[in-house]
């Protein structure tokens, strides 16, 4: 019974979009580390992407309201720091979603999301959010964002 409920919680969490990149969910982002059921309460372990990322607070709120709206009241969100979040946890499917959305996914060879050329150049290691850097495509000359490897 509990296992079934835990599965349901994961399904609900998978509907909560990343506040800054709504095309992927918080589960796909890899920040939900564990869901357990202890002392009559669901414990959802969350790890921050970047230490200071403002989206962390936003998705905590989003997760809380999603669970409440679906009738789950007995839960707590726990922040865990270890193991530290890494883009290695992102599946190929998630990376494809980012690419289609116009964000070059984390990888050693940075590919332009517009023309798919791998002839690209770094503009700045820091971008519009903590997790992204700015690149330019040498082929089609379009600037684009790259999800940093961390």
């Amino acid at each position: 019974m509990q296992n079934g409920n835990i599965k349901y919680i994961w399904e609900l969490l998978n509907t909560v979009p990343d506040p800054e990149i709504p095309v992927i969910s918080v589960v796909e982002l890899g920040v939900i580390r564990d869901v357990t059921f202890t002392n009559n309460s669901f414990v959802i372990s969350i790890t921050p992407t970047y230490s200071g990322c403002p989206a962390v607070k936003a998705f905590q709120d989003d997760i809380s309201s999603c669970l409440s709206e679906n009738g789950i009241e007995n839960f707590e969100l726990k922040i865990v720091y270890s193991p530290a979040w890494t883009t290695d946890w992102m599946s190929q499917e998630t990376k494809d979603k980012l690419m289609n959305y116009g964000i070059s996914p984390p990888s050693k060879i940075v590919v332009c999301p517009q023309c798919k050329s791998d002839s690209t150049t770094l503009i700045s290691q820091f971008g519009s959010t903590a997790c992204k850097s700015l690149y330019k495509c040498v082929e089609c000359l379009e600037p684009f964002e790259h999800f940093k490897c961390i």
Partner: protein
Amino acid sequence: MSLLNYTLRIADSSLILAQRISGWCSKGPTLEEDIALSNIALDLFGQANGFLEYASKLDGNKTPDQLAFNRNEREFFNLQITEQENGNFADTIVRQFFFSTYSFLFYTELSKSTDETLAALAVKSLKEVKYHLQHSKSWMLRLGDGTEESKQKTQTALQYFWQFTGELFEMDEVDMEMSKSGIGVGNSELKTNWDKMVNEVIDQSTLERPVDAYMQTGSKKGLHTEYLGHLLSEMQYLPRAYPNAKW
């Protein structure tokens, strides 16, 4: 008590430098650079928050916010280099380069701490600091090996901030105790590696390493340069003027 003090030192250096760098927000030399500096400040605020949460747990009485906003100047243990004013862009870059090189080496060692929380926070911070280091290193090269003016300003900045680098490797009784028990970081390799990394970049940037002279000291005892008080008065104004104000 020593562990709390040790944790606060790490937290305070990140917090104060974050507050300092934030002063560049909307004033950066280019849009990309404005974003870069703001992102670095944000990472450092986040790191400070992690260490302050742990300090709050060890303290048992004060919340992380109270630790940040209700302590006075003499109760802060940040390295003095972090409270120095932003100055011109070269000043900010040199300060950042010295500090990021130090942080990179410090967190690499702290990742092996026998204290699980400190080790976890170090692993996390290290990932971010690697980007900060790359950033300031590439600017050192461009400014040092740039125009006559950029070179001169960067050399002047090296000269000024050098007096604050002695403190990075000081060991007092708290550091000794922490290092001995496997929780904290020893200074011997830290200093050797820092010198190596810094010398390399200074050489590549065609700049000159300042000569070791008098080194400033005191932050481990809560002694600071005049700049910290001014910084705190701005940072702490709101929670002190309106206690219990909610965001």
